[in-house]
């Protein structure tokens, strides 16, 4: 999710200079020459523009913009559910949120969750990309095979891993027992100290494939003459990695990290399916708590406050990373 070039301003971080037909190779580093949004053939075409925008805009207004505005409104109102009338309560819901221990737990878990995801999914994606991109003959095979988990719905991933973690018949504990590591069997989803990590492994297993593809695309864009130059200077493989490869991946890394953080922030399905936030709220995230408040206990005011918190976190992550990327590409 890259913020595209803003009209009138050249920000244009990762957006590539879009080429005409047929061009598909990733061109991360290339900056858009035309940072200014849209060119402008158009005098008196405002009417046409309106009709071209209308279908998208109508849907977007009803199902996205209106709900965003309504969420703000809800956060200042007391409401006991979907069919009750609301009354203005000022900042009461915000005060309630600040005093709710589950909110703080959910927030802490969410931060931990996205850190796990960045490190495990992002890290695995990078490592595999470094290895896979050295292959020629078997590259397509390995790339495709490693990508398979990413095709599976996170809800299905939740079902798969709930069974893998099954204490008696699951792959994890039965395999450990069979290879003589019975001492390492765990209550993967029942141990309060372990549960968030266990569930995150499932999510990261599903997530790393896309990051790997992005890193591979980034690696393909590193100028090969840099490696030749390093070799002339007598650099060994490790030095080439440190001085050529990793710096060459800086832009794509910021992109992957921001994408992984946003994906982590939105994490919901695996937790919902595998633990529903338990045991004892030990895997409750902001998103699962929003769902619980909105559709089970029907505390819409408190839920709306958490919705706003979630949005602000997403916006903050996006802005910080876009600034960072813009600075990198200067």
């Amino acid at each position, binding site marked *: 999710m890259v913020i*595209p070039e803003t009209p009138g301003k050249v920000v244009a971080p990762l957006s590539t200079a879009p080429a005409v037909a047929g061009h598909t190779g990733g061109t991360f580093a290339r900056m858009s020459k035309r940072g200014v949004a849209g060119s*402008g053939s158009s005098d008196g075409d405002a009417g046409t523009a309106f009709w071209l925008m209308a279908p998208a805009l109508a849907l977007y207004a*009803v199902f996205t913009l209106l709900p965003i505005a*309504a969420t703000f409104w809800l956060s200042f109102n007391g409401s006991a559910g979907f069919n009750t009338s609301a009354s203005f309560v000022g900042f009461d819901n915000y005060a309630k949120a600040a005093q709710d221990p589950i909110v703080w737990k959910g927030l802490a878990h969410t931060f931990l969750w996205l850190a796990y995801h960045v490190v495990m999914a992002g890290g695995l994606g990078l490592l595999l990309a470094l290895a896979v991109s050295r292959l020629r003959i078997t590259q397509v095979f390995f790339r495709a095979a490693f990508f398979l988990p990413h095709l599976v719905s996170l809800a299905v991933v939740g079902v798969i891993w709930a069974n893998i973690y099954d204490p008696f018949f699951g792959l994890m504990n039965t395999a450990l027992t069979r290879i003589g590591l019975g001492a390492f069997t765990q209550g993967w989803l029942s141990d309060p100290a372990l549960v968030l990590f266990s569930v995150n492994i499932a999510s990261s297993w599903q997530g790393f494939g896309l990051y790997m593809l992005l890193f591979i695309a980034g690696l393909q864009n590193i100028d090969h003459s840099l490696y030749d130059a390093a070799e002339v200077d007598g650099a060994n493989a490790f030095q080439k990695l440190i001085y050529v490869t990793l710096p060459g991946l800086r832009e794509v890394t910021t992109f992957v990290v921001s994408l992984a953080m946003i994906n982590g922030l939105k994490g919901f399905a695996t937790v919902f399916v595998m633990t529903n936030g338990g045991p004892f709220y030990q895997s409750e995230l902001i998103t699962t708590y929003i769902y619980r408040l909105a559709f089970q206990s029907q505390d*819409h005011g408190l839920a709306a406050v958490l919705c706003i918190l979630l949005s602000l976190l997403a916006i903050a992550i996006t802005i910080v990373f876009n600034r960072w990327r813009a600075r990198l590409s200067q």
Partner: protein
Amino acid sequence: MSVRNREWPVALALTPALILILAPFLWLVVSSFKTEAEIGRADPFTWPADLMWRNYLDAWQIGGFADLVGNSLINLVGVVVLSLVTCAPAGYALAKIRFPGREWLFYAFILGLTVPVQAIVIPLYQVLFGLNLVNTLAGIVLVQVSNGIPFGIFLMRSFFIGVPDDLIEAAKIDGASHFQILTKVFLPISTPAVQALVIISALSTWNDFFLPLIVLISPEVQTLPLGLVRFASTYASDYRLVFSGTVISFLPIILLYILMQRRFTEGLTQGAIKG
């Protein structure tokens, strides 16, 4: 090659990692052919004595997978078609036509690109309820399309910006309208962008769980991931059904990917970078 090519050592080193990462699939597929008694032996390294195809038959019927797959397909086609129909013209207008309010719209779409859908779920449900769209496939399609609109528009726009204005001027001299320029000139040369939009919207729709969970309440209208979760919790202790049902849920997309590997890879990479 300046990066020295060590094909076989690297491939060899990657093989254990590959087996480990694909182990969940292998284990599920093998287990799904076992009898309940064989699963009860809790030994993941044995093969089933006979392949229990019956597990699949039972899961398919008990889980109502025919309906789930059908609903998922309707859902997918609806979202892909509507996304193209809405995002291509809007992306064109944002890229190539100057009109008052363009900057304002641009920021409005960025807002939607950033705010997670979980954060607007309460009013979203209320809007659907008001329009009588709760528990309908039409409802889920409209919500998912709207949710994907900012991404789709920016994807199309970023591609269209690179198309030279001269093409528009030339077409205008020939008397073409903007709509004709879009359909006859821009779309035919935008296959990579269209492909990326189709693949990304199809995959995210097929796999979506959160919105169907909110919108699709009764089993007859549910899509595959939602239906599987319901099935797996209903028959939680009937492992052979859960295993084969789960394999049914991930197999189609994996087979499709193996057939169209290159397009998927291109589409997803391009989409992630440009969207």
